[in-house]
């Protein structure tokens, strides 16, 4: 089942011009996809189109059952409740504790008050931070902060997790830990689309890779598989 579908998508920004040109691809439910490519290639733009932070200039994006053409602000809000998004810079609320940051997200999507505490505990357990519940973000390492951000992204029980260079600010050990966590989340059924510069990580993982350059997909490991059918079981 397809959860993300880009059909001939082009994106032009008002001042900088064409960022994506005629991009088409699908992501299936439960898939793990890397977006790679040089800086400025258009990776973040693709991710923004997935969580409808930007809308295509031409073409169409479907995520879950929401279509970009004619989408309303309300529909975008509802779609985001099926997505999780994490960034390189974590984007935590600095004046709230770890558990308050996660509870905030649960509160926003209308989780009943009596369910919030248990759910926060479960999410913290899932990302391995149960002991840091009352810490403030600045008291945590980068890797731990990213785990909090991931826990917050999972608050929605998302169908798709979008990660824009989630390990970009982390050392090797933290990178491996966060990546391992993303693999676990993916193994539990959530599709993950992750933009990254870390080619080591990409090579070792043997997952689907979309390579972007100058606003176009220049390489998709899936296409290769399709061309060499003996590799598919």
């Amino acid at each position, binding site marked *: 089942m397809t959860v993300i579908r880009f059909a001939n998508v082009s994106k032009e920004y008002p001042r900088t011009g064409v960022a994506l040109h005629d991009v088409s691809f699908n992501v299936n439910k439960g898939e793990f996809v890397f977006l790679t490519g040089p800086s400025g290639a258009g990776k973040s733009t693709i991710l923004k189109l997935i*969580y409808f*932070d930007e809308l295509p200039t031409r073409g169409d994006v479907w995520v879950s059952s929401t279509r970009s053409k004619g989408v309303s*602000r*309300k529909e975008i*809000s*509802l*779609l*985001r*409740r099926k*997505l999780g*998004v994490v960034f390189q810079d974590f*984007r935590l*609320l600095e004046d709230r504790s770890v558990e308050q940051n996660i509870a*905030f*997200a649960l*509160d*926003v*999507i209308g989780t009943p*008050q009596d369910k919030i505490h248990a759910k926060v505990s479960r999410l913290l357990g899932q990302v391995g931070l149960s002991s840091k519940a009352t810490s403030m973000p600045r008291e945590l390492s980068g890797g731990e902060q990213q785990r909090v951000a991931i826990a*917050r992204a999972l*608050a*929605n029980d998302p169908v798709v997790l979008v990660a824009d260079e989630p390990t970009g600010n982390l050392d090797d050990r933290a990178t491996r830990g966060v990546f391992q966590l993303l693999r676990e989340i993916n193994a539990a059924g959530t599709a993950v689309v992750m933009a990254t510069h870390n080619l080591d990580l990409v090579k070792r993982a043997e997952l689907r890779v979309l390579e972007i350059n100058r606003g176009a997909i220049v390489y998709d490991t899936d296409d290769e598989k399709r061309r060499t059918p003996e590799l598919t079981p």
Partner: protein
Amino acid sequence: MRLAVREALLGFRRAPMLSMLSITTIAFSLFAFGLFSLVALNIRSTLSAMESRVEIRAFLSDSTTPESIAAAMGDIGGFKEVARVEYITPEQALERARLELGEFKDVFEAGFLPASLDVRMREGYRDPETVKKVADRVKVYDFVDDVRYGEEWVQKLYSIRNVATAAGIILGLAFAAVSIIVIGATIRMAVMARSREISIMRLVGATDGFIRRPFLIEGLVKGVLGGAFALLLTRVASSLISRYFIQTEFFDTRLALLGLLGGAVIGVVGSALSVGRQIRRVQ
């Protein structure tokens, strides 16, 4: 909902000066409304106390026959504006004059005062214009020598009331406009201060309505506080006037609640006018 209230309270703590300014301007707006409504209210109750006595007195010539008097009473009594018509004989007029002007009672002699028809107006028809209209209709009988009604100062009280009402509305609206501008500025700042929270709320799927809610609650609370402050000011003004000038009556509970409601409306409308535009600027 709990989150919304918490965020709203946070707004007060983040910008206490601007919040106070919003509350104060709302209070001044409602104080202007309130003060002038108080004037209007008191004039009105004075007027209605007098109005219940408002009557048209038609003095009759001496030669009027009882039949024409009876016919005229029937006619006039049939006007929809008229509650009651009473025939006052010269003797009764004298008696009344003596009662009203006690110490001069010896001045009057029987036959000095003419007979009259006293016409009482129905409630709702006691304003100067209607009274004048009815008086004009009474004047057309040949045997009516003269008609007296509504003193000049009744007219004056009416115009004071109208001026007070107009002044209250204009000043009140001016302050309301200022408070809406101040609220707008407050919200602009509050949205900037909370832009990080707002963008995270967006990211996890908060609707515009949800993001707007704490700002509207904050506006509501400010409005009600402003309304309460205005009531207090008006109450103080009212007792000062009562003490040093004339006895005044204060608003009843219903009007006081209306004041709080007015504050709530200014607060919420002021917030609603700017919050939508402001939160759309945060992505």
